[in-house]
C-alpha cells in the first residue's frame, strides 16, 4: 500500500475540480435566472408606464 496517499490526493483533486466546476456553473445559472426574472419584471413595469 505504498504511495496510497498520492492515489488518494490524485483522485480527490480530480473529482474536486470536476464537481467544483459543476457547482460553479450551477451557482452561475441560479444568479443569471434571478437577474433575468428581475429584468423581465422591470421591463414589463416600464412598458406599462409607457402605455399609460
Amino acid at each position, binding site marked *: *500500500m*505504498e*504511495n*496510497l496517499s*498520492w*492515489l488518494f*490526493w*490524485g*483522485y480527490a*483533486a*480530480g473529482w474536486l*475540480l*470536476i464537481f467544483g*466546476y*459543476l457547482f460553479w*456553473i*450551477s451557482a*452561475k*445559472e441560479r444568479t*443569471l*435566472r434571478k*437577474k*433575468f*426574472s428581475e*429584468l*423581465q419584471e*422591470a*421591463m*414589463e413595469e*416600464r*412598458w406599462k408606464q*409607457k402605455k399609460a
Partner: protein
Amino acid sequence: MDGMLSEFDDKPAVPPWLIAAAALAMMVHLYLIFVWVPTEATMGIVQRLFYFHVPAAVVQFTACFVGGIAAILYLVKRDNRYDDLSLAANETVVVFGLVNIGMGMLWAKPIWGIWWTWDARLTSSFLLLFLYGAYLVIRPAAPVEHRGMVCAVVCILGMADVPLVYLSNRLFRTQHPSPVLGGGKDSGLAPEMLTTLFFGMFTMMLLWWCVVSVRRRVARLERASADLTRRAHELDDLRRY
C-alpha cells in the same frame, strides 16, 4: 416578453437518464479501478491514477475538437448556438486539462521524484492549457460584436495544437512514458487494464457531455440576459428623449 425565461424551463439541460447513466458508470469505474484491476508490478498502487489521468486527457482533446468545429461552424453560419457550444467545450478543456496535468504531477512525484519536467509532452500539454486559459481571458475582454469571431480564431488555433500534444511522445524522446496504445511492439496493456481504461474513457465522456450541456444552457442564459439588459437601457433612452 411573457415566458422568455420559460424557454429555459421547458426541459432539463441534461436528460435524467443521462445523469443516471453517468452516475452509474462512475460507480462501476471506481469499482474497476480500486477492486477489479490488478496492481501494476513496477509502479504499484499509484499507477491506478492512470485510469483517470488518461480519460481526462482524451476528454480534453475531444473538447478541443468539439469547440474548434463549433467555432468553424459559427464562422460559417454566424449562429450563436455554435458559439455557445464552443464556449462550453473550451471551458471544459481547461477543467479536464487541469485534472489531467494535476493527476500527472501527483503520479510523477512518487515515480520520478519530481513534480514537473519540461519535456515535449508536458510542455506541449502546458501550452495547450495556457492557450485555452488565454481564450477564457480574451472572451470577456473582446468587444461584444466581435467576440464570437475573435474567440473562434483562438480556439481553432488550440484545436490545431492537439495533434502536436498527441504526437509529442512519439516524435521526441520524453521523460513521459511512451504510448501504451498503438506505441509499437513493446507497448500494450493487460486485458483488465485495457477494459478499465476504455470504461474510464466512456465514463468521462458521459460526465463531460453532462457538464457541457449544463454550461451551454448557462451560455444561452448569459446571452439572453445581456440582450434583455441592452433592451432595458434602450427603453430608458427612449423615455429620456
